[in-house]
Structure formats: C-alpha cells, structure tokens
C-alpha cells in the first residue's frame, strides 16, 4: 500500500543527493547516533526512577520535568535525521523487516511517552501505585529497545 510513496520518495532531489554523496549518509548517521545518546539518557533516567532505581531520592515528577526537554529535542533531531536517512534508501527500507519493527515500535513508543508515561510521571507522589510505575517503565524500555535494535538491524543484511 505504501510502496508508491516509497518509490516516489526515492525520486526526490533530497533522496538522490544523499544517496549520491559519498559522505552525506555518514554525517547524518553520526548526528542520528549522537541524538541516540541523548534520547537514551533522557528515557533511561526517568524509566530507572519509575523502577525505583537511579535518582530515587528525587520525586518522579522532578526527574520527569528535567528529562522532558531532552527527550523532545533529541527526538526532533532523531526524526529529522531519520527521515533523511530513510529517504536515501526507501526501497531497501520497504523490504526490510527491521525497518517495520522499528517504525511500529517508534509509533507506539512516542504515543506512550507523551500520553500514559507522561501522565503517570506527573501524577504526583503516591497517586499511582509503584507497581504501575514499574509497568510503565518496562513498557517504555521495551518499546524504545525495539526502536534502537530495529534501527541498528536495518544496516545488517542477515
């Protein structure tokens, strides 16, 4: 169903420029990777706290508020660089299972991060049972792991 879109993507000037350039992909990929570090820290800091680990002397809400801007900004960099990387090889992506694993995980991870996870994290002390905080953290970590592992695996041809 999406194949025509992927085919069109391949014909865009941006796609051609990145695919033709010897270094553009590598440079964009590096930025993607640097943002991965930041998003990893932002996600992990709050999820560890929800699990009762990491910065556990701080209120969940405090950690959530400090992590949020870094999650949002690194996510923006990830999305922009990610679209550029995708645009340079859309057909390869279309037929790549890891790519689709990553896209579905990403969609769910983003929805989860900005709805349930954020709501739970900002609910305030004692409003949500600790066990549910842990469930939220595990769901979040699992989804983001799917994004990262899927992403890395797009590059492998096994």
């Amino acid at each position: 169903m999406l194949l025509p879109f992927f085919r069109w993507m391949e014909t865009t000037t941006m796609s051609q420029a990145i695919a033709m350039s010897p270094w553009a992909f590598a440079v964009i990929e590096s930025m993607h990777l640097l943002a991965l570090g930041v998003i990893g820290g932002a996600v992990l800091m709050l999820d560890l706290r929800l699990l009762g680990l990491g910065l556990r002397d701080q209120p969940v809400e405090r950690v959530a508020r400090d992590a949020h801007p870094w999650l949002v900004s690194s996510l923006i960099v990830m999305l922009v660089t990610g679209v550029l990387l995708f645009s340079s090889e859309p057909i390869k992506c279309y037929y790549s299972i890891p790519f689709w694993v990553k896209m579905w995980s990403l969609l769910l991870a983003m929805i989860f991060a900005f709805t349930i996870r954020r709501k739970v994290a900002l609910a305030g002390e004692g409003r949500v049972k600790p066990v549910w905080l842990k469930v939220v953290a595990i769901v979040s970590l699992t989804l983001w792991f799917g994004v990262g592992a899927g992403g890395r695996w797009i590059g492998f041809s096994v």
Partner: protein
Amino acid sequence: MSLLPFVQWLANTPGSTALHESVYAYPLVESAHVLTLCIFLGLAVMFDLRLLGITLTTVPMSQLKQRLGPWMTAGFIVMVITGAMLFYAIPVRSYQSVWFRTKAVALVLAGLNAFVFHRTIDRRIEEWDRDPVPPRAARRAGARSLVLWTVIVVCGRMIAYNWFDCDKQPQPRIVNALAGCVVPPEEGR
C-alpha cells in the same frame, strides 16, 4: 614501535576469524555496543549537562554520582568488552584506521579529563554540591567531556567507512602516515 605484527597475529587467531565470519555474533556484538551507548553515554551526557548547570539543577551533584554512577560504570564495562570484541574481529583494518586511532586518542583524553576532574574540583564537591551552576572548573570538565564523547561517537561510526583504508591507494600522504599504512614510496601521493 609498530603494533602491526601483533594485530596481524591477532587477526590469525581462530577466535578472530570466527567472529569476523559469523552471521549473527558480530551484528549482535555491534548492536550491544551501540545500544549500551544509551546507558553509558546517555547518563554521562546528563551528568555533563548537570556539571554545566543546564539540567537537574536541583539535584545535588553527589547524589547524581551516587545514583547514576553504578549504571554508567556497568554500561562502560559492556562498551569496553563489546568494543574490544569488535576490534578483535577486525584487528588489522581497525588498527590502520584513522578513525579508530582518533577515537582511541579521544578516549584517552576523556579518561584523563575524568581523572583530573576527580582529583581536583571533585575533591571539594561539598563546597558546590548543591549549586545550580557548578564552578567554572567543573563546567569546563563537563564541556570537555561532551566534546570528546562527540568525537568518540562520530569516529566510532566512521570506522565502518573505507574512505581512508590502507588498501585504497593512492591516499594523501598524511592519511597514510596517520593510519600507519605500509605502502611502497611511489604509491603514496
């Protein structure tokens, strides 16, 4: 002194060949290396940003160290082990890579930066533990760390590209010198 004979010997060990030719082991090790970046580097970035007084400003520095330190250490250990395995799988090419060499130098500098931080301003942490913006020496250590880790990540990623590989001659003389390529004099540009 050249380590070339050593890495050549390393490349000929059965373990190196097996890892190099494996269908799943190498990608798995590489994935672990990259994803552990989220644990080690992600938390290190938060730590450095706290040193710069940009985030977590209400959290005492000592608490950050105590609570995130063990995770960073664990992540770092995984990164070193998987990184060593990646090198072990492709020793000669990695050794003769300008990217790998730059990464190695930056790693040493990052270690030195951390060491100096712990030996100096970190010793007097109780004086500035709760300061939203730590003293200049601490901020500088944080900034240096961010720059060095950026270099490390970018160079690490670039190792995969063969632009400056020794078997792709002619290369500029500077590349051959930095990578330690063994080329007949007339081939160097």
